[in-house]
């Protein structure tokens, strides 16, 4: 297909993916057809960030799709080696910037694994409450982005209205709208202000009242949406598991794997919820899974608010956080999948090594496997299925 010289030019391009959906090269050779090489480059208004896709197109069919990442690399893992343990938390905020609470939570779980700190129950409840609010604030714009890429410009603005309201709740609790720096090693930074639980209740009730109208009625029955997303990006369970995909992209194929239930952390064992799965592994299924997870989060938030105990919000970590030599591992269910942090300590004030297993990075493999065989306009809904965030895949 591509000449060897041209293939060498594409920096970072990998070899031919073993996908069975490629258009047969024999047909192309027989008719003397050529493919168009196109770069859906880093400057693109509709990518989820700075991603370069090297495409080989046969008319409108994608023959080859290679993602090239690294345009937003900020050396988070290296910087973390030079900062003290508590000072790494603002860094983790900036990884997957749509789900900041989960990033902080994962890192704090990893360090608490090293330290063996007792976390007070109220702090755990507040952590889960914040994480579930963050999940809402992340899933609703994900649906909006899916619709934006399909060409409907309205749902994303309704979605950002919800996110703004959740962000103003976060601002009242943590002090910042996006880079919270709230979940600390041993607990959370400060207790909820006294009027916040009431505000969260009111917000959740108003969201439930118009969630159906704004995000389900507008989208789910729309025939154009259905025809654009049904059977697009169809994955089998084996493919998804083999590629290490987690999160809603995995659950939409039918595998029920949710870190909150399979490797429980924090107080999730005390809360009642179910894993949402769907059997069709396509974009429409991922949309349904995300909608159901939003409703799950709403019910989890209500449970947290009802069951929250009184008490302190910060455990006793000592004056300096200087763990023994060893390794700590923490994993959380972020809105995009399994987010895990591996911290290696050498006994000093700063970590020896911090590694982030980001779900956006691992789920991007889908693009190379699944996209060939689809049409060019289908790439965007498939990105909506994967739902990566560029801070996540690039760190």
């Amino acid at each position, binding site marked *: 297909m591509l000449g060897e010289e041209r293939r060498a030019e594409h920096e970072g391009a990998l070899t031919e993916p073993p996908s069975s959906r490629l258009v047969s090269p024999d047909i192309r050779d027989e008719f003397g057809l050529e493919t168009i090489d196109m770069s859906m480059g880093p400057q693109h208004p509709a990518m989820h960030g700075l991603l370069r896709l090297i495409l080989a197109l046969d008319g409108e069919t994608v023959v080859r799709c290679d993602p090239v990442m690294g345009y937003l690399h900020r050396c988070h893992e290296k910087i973390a080696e030079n900062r003290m343990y508590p000072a790494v938390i603002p860094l983790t905020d900036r990884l997957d910037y749509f789900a900041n609470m989960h990033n902080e939570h994962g890192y704090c779980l990893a360090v608490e694994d090293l330290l063996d700190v007792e976390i007070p129950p109220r702090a755990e409840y507040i952590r889960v409450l914040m994480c579930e609010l963050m999940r809402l604030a992340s899933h609703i714009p994900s649906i909006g982005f899916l619709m934006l890429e399909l060409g409907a410009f309205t749902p994303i603005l309704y979605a950002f209205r919800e996110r703004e309201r959740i962000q103003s709740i976060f601002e009242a609790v943590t002090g910042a709208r996006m880079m919270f720096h709230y979940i600390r090693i041993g607990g959370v930074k400060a207790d909820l202000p006294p009027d916040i639980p009431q505000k969260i209740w009111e917000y959740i009730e108003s969201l439930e009242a118009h969630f159906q109208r704004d995000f389900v009625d507008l989208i*789910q029955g*729309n025939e154009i949406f259905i025809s654009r997303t049904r059977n697009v990006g169809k994955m089998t369970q084996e493919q998804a598991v083999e590629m290490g995909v987690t999160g809603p992209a995995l659950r939409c194929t039918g595998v029920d794997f949710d870190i909150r239930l399979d490797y429980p952390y924090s107080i999730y064992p005390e809360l009642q919820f179910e894993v949402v799965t769907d059997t069709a592994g396509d974009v429409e299924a991922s949309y349904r899974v995300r909608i159901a997870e939003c409703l799950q989060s709403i019910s989890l938030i209500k449970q947290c608010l009802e069951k929250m105990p009184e008490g302190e919000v910060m455990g006793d970590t000592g004056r300096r956080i200087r763990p023994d030599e060893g390794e700590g591992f923490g994993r959380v269910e972020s809105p995009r999948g399994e987010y895990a942090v591996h911290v290696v300590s050498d006994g000093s004030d700063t970590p020896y090594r911090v590694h982030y297993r980001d779900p956006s990075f691992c789920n991007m493999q889908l693009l190379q496997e699944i996209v060939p065989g689809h049409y060019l306009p289908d790439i965007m809904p498939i990105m909506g299925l994967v739902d990566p965030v560029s801070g996540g895949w690039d760190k």
Partner: protein
Amino acid sequence: MPQVGQGILKGMGVTLQHLFGQKITRQYPEYKRELPERSRGMLTVDMDRCIACLQCMRICPDHCISIESTKRDADGSGKPKPFAVGFVIDDSRCMYCSLCVEVCPVNCIYHTEEFEAQAYNRLELARQFGELPVDPTVDPKPTVKKKKKPTGKKAPSTVEQPVSEKDDAA
């Protein structure tokens, strides 16, 4: 093959409802939202309380605080104490993480509700609080201690061992 049917018409009904609904835009700058109590805006220092302990300078992850301290008898008690003659906060670097606020023992550095940091020149964003101006472009010395606790365990080696020359010759 899509058929134009109820799904699309239902969606159009939703947008029509919103067309005549209430708008959620707030016309900034005529309307300024009331910020919550804890909101983290730009930093400011109460120099009367500062004891020049340099804790904020040490903990700042972005090295945006630079302090020049001398010993001076500021309150007439007879004993010269550390006094900050130069204190600069560089807004172009500050990421509003509030670590300096938490670590200050006398609560003299705190967040205001200002968030509009604009200037024509990046150097204007460095705000000087002390008597002498401090150069914000010079990084303060990193003061992270690397004291190790004496245990028997070795840190896991993730550094690649250098290739020996024997392998090269083979």
